[in-house]
């Protein structure tokens, strides 16, 4: 049985999640429409409200975000690191596809994450897919199965260190 206090906490969490969804949708709508006239605003508010209410479990950018200064700094550093890795992964891939011998040693390895939040795990899986030689194939709670173009190690600890640790460090602070 759920106690009244627990029910209240859950209801508050749901209200907060709906509000976050609403704000995100409205922000994107306003960026897309590019003006702040009254009719654009009314349409945006109505549409965002309906979607936010219909999808209480939807996740967005700001779901489960920790609104602290540390999280903000970690967010900036995360994006810096992310774009650096994205460029690196493209250069490495270019070198592979342009070399006549096609030097690959592919395989699917298993890694583990410490992240608990849904958004944190989503961002981690996405980041892994966009970084050098790795592609998330399957997720099973804390385990991720990652396709690796050049398997450096199929040991769980070593692979986690090479693939997950770089992003986890920042995402842990941002989403938990």
């Amino acid at each position, binding site marked *: 049985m759920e106690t009244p206090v627990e029910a209240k906490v859950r209801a508050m969490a749901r209200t907060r999640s709906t509000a976050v969804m609403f704000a995100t949708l409205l922000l*994107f709508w306003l*960026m*897309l429409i*590019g003006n702040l006239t009254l009719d654009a605003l009314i349409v945006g508010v109505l549409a965002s409200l309906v979607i936010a209410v219909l999808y209480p479990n939807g996740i967005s950018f700001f779901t489960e975000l920790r609104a602290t200064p540390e999280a903000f700094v970690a967010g900036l550093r995360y994006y810096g690191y992310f774009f650096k890795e*994205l*460029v690196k*992964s*493209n250069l490495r*891939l*270019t070198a*592979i*596809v*342009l070399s006549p011998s*096609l030097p*690959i*040693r*592919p*395989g*699917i*390895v*298993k890694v583990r994450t410490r992240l608990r939040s849904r958004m944190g795990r989503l961002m981690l*899986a*996405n*980041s892994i*897919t*966009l970084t050098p*030689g*790795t*592609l*998330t*194939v*399957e997720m099973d709670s804390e385990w991720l*199965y990652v*396709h690796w*173009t050049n*398997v450096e190690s*199929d040991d769980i600890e070593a692979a986690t260190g090479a693939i997950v640790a770089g992003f986890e460090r920042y995402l842990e602070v941002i989403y938990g």
Partner: protein
Amino acid sequence: MSSLLAVVGGILLVGGTAFLLFGAIGLVRMPDAYNRLQAGTKTTTLGTLLSLAGVACLHPEWALKLLLIGIFLLFTNPLSSQVLARAAHRIGVKKAPQTVVDRLEEDLAEKDLGARP
């Protein structure tokens, strides 16, 4: 000022197109579905982002909308590749002969054995 922006925009567009070309070459040369997805995902993401940045330099008034497209791209591109890779693995798409290890298949086989009476 605007001519400098045009030059920067042109360079970004050429850079983006180059990565898209390398991605296309990767699609042809890679040996199996998973490696092709890798080539496709990374290069299309950076290639398209660079192209969008190039267009933003040439048409600064579109910058906000281009940024929005970039954000959607960053979220949806890896997600769709992951879903494709997962679907490929589930229906048993063949892996390249060079493949050295497949932990996912090992774990799935273990679970199947455990489920049998």
